[in-house]
C-alpha cells in the first residue's frame, strides 16, 4: 500500500531489494546479458507504470515476478517472430560475456535440458526461493503439480549433474546428437502451458 501512495521512496526501497533477484531471473533465462539488463529495466518501468493500479492481493514478490514473466514471454515471442519471419537469429550469447566457469556452464546446460515447466519450477524454487504456493500462483498450476514436478525436475537434475551419468550422456550425445536434441525438446511445451 505504501508503494501505491508514497511511490518514490517505496519504489527506491523495493528496487534495492529486488534489483538483483530480478536481474538474476532474466540472466538465467535469457542467453544475452544485454537483453537481461534491458528486460530488468523494462520490468521496473512496468512496475512504475502500474503502481497506481496495484492491489495487494498477493505477495509483492509474486506480483513482481508475474510482471517479469509477462515481459519474458513477450521477449521470447518477439524473438521467435523475428527468427521465423524476419530471418533474425535468436540472440547469440557473446562468449566474452557468458558464464566462463565450467561448473556454471554445466549447470546451465543441465537445467536447459529439463522440461520447460519443470525447469521454471525448479528455477523459481532454487534461485528465486519462492514457496510452493507462490510458484503455483505464478504458473497457475495446482500445488500438488508443483510438488510432483519439482521432485521430477530435481531427480532429472541429479542424473544430469552426476558426473558418471553425465559422462555416459556425453558419449551418447557424441554418438547421436539428434537424439539428445530431441530429448532436449520440452515435452511439456506441447501441453498447453507455454513459457
Amino acid at each position, binding site marked *: 500500500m505504501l508503494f501505491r501512495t508514497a511511490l518514490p521512496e517505496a519504489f527506491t526501497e523495493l528496487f534495492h531489494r529486488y534489483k538483483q533477484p530480478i536481474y538474476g531471473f532474466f540472466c538465467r533465462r535469457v542467453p544475452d*546479458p544485454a537483453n537481461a539488463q534491458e528486460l530488468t529495466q523494462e520490468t*521496473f518501468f512496468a512496475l512504475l507504470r502500474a503502481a497506481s493500479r496495484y492491489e495487494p492481493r498477493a505477495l509483492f514478490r509474486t506480483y513482481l515476478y508475474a510482471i517479469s514473466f509477462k515481459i519474458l514471454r513477450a521477449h521470447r515471442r518477439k524473438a521467435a517472430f523475428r527468427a521465423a*519471419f524476419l530471418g533474425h537469429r535468436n540472440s547469440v550469447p557473446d562468449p566474452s560475456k557468458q558464464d566462463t566457469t565450467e561448473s556454471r556452464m554445466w549447470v546451465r546446460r543441465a537445467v536447459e535440458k529439463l522440461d520447460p515447466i519443470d525447469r521454471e519450477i525448479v528455477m523459481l524454487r532454487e534461485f528465486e526461493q519462492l514457496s510452493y504456493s507462490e510458484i503455483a500462483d505464478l504458473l497457475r498450476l495446482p500445488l500438488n503439480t508443483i*510438488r510432483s514436478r*519439482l521432485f521430477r525436475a530435481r531427480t532429472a537434475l541429479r542424473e544430469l549433474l552426476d558426473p558418471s551419468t553425465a559422462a555416459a550422456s556425453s558419449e551418447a550425445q557424441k554418438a547421436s546428437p539428434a537424439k539428445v536434441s530431441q530429448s532436449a525438446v520440452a515435452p511439456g511445451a506441447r501441453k498447453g502451458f507455454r513459457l
Partner: protein
Amino acid sequence: MALLDGELRVDRSLFVSAHIADCSECDKTTDSVRNVSTSLAKWTVPNMPVSIEDKVLRSLSHIKNLRTNEFLSGLRRLQSLQAVLVSGAGLVTLWVFFGLNSGRHYRVASKIAAERDLPVDNAAPMASSPTSRATLSERGRNPITGRDNADSQYYVHKIPFQAQPGYAQLETQQPPMIARTVLLSIVVKDFDAARASFDAILARHNGYAASLNVSTLQGSARTLQASLRIPAPQLAAALSESKALGRLENETQNGEEVTQQHADLLARLKNSRETEGRLQDVLRTRTGKVKDVLEVEQELARVRGEIEQIEAEQKTLEHRVEFATIDLKLAEEYKAQLNTPAPSVLMQLRNAAVNGFRSAFESLLALVLFLAESGPSLLLWLAPLGIPGWRLWKRYRRAQ
C-alpha cells in the same frame, strides 16, 4: 523434498527428520537432493550494472514530474469540465429565454387569429346577415382538397331567410340559396356501436351515404370516412346526433350562396323558351324556301337542346338544395392489441424442423456451389501462398 524446502509443518518436519535419521535410503535421497541444490547454487549471476540502476532511479524523477503533470492535467480537466458546465448552463438559459419568447409570440398570434377567426358553431345564425354570408362565401373552400366548393359537387339547400330592412330591394324576391357542407371528425371508443348509431342516424333523418370507406389497418385504429347527404331541414338534428357519437375533434361548416347562379339559370331558361316559341311560330306561320325551313328547324333543335340542358342543371341545383353534405370521419381510439396467439408447440416444432432442414440444405447447396465456383481458384492460389505460410509457421513454432 518439502522438508528441505521448509514447506512442512513443525510436527511433520520433526517426524520426517526422525525417519531420515533412521532410514539410510531416505538419507541418501535427501543428500542427493541437497547436492542438486548445492550444484545449482553454483550458477551465480553477476551484479546488476550500475548504469541500469541509475537509469531506473532517474526515471523516478520523471515519474514525479509525471505526477505533477497528472495533477496539472487533472486541474485542466476540472477546468474544462467547469467550462462545459458553464456553456451548458448558458445554452439552457438561452433556450429558456427564446423558448419563452417564442411561446409568448405563439400565444399572441393564436389570440389574434382566434379574434379574427369566426366561431364555427355560429356559422348558421350568422348566415342570416349579408355580412356573414359574404364571410361564409369567402370561407367556402374545401379544407381537404383546397378547391372552391363551387367547383365540387357539394349540394346546396335553402335556409330560412330573415331579410334585413332594405335587403329585399337589393336582391330578388327569391330566398337566398346557401350550400351547406359540414366536415366532422370524431373519435369514438366503441367503433362498432358508433357504426350502428351512424346507420340509425341516416335512417332516422332519411339521409343516405354517398360514399363510405372503412379501413382497418394492422397496428392502427379503425377509421370510417363517409360523405352523407341529409335533408337540409334535418341537418341540425343530424349534426347534434352525430356529435354525440364520440369525442369531437374537428368541425368545419361552410355555406356558399348560389342564388345568383339559380337566378341566371332561370333567366337563361326563360329566354331559351321564348326563343323556342318564336322559332315555332316562324316555322308554323311563315313559308319560304326549304333551305330556310331547314335552318329554322336546326336552330329550333339547338335551342331545344339548350333548354333541356338548362332544365337539367336547374333540377340538379334544386335537388341539391334539398340536401346538405356531411363529410364524416370516425376514428376509433387506438388500443394496442396483443399479437395473435402463437401456434401450438407441436406446430412450432414442426415449423422449426422444416426451416432447419431447409436452411441446412440451402447452406450445403451454397457450400457446394461455392466450392464448384471458387474451388479451382482456391487450389490455384493455395499452392503458392499456403505452402510458404505453412513453412513460416513451422519455423515460428520451432523458434519458440
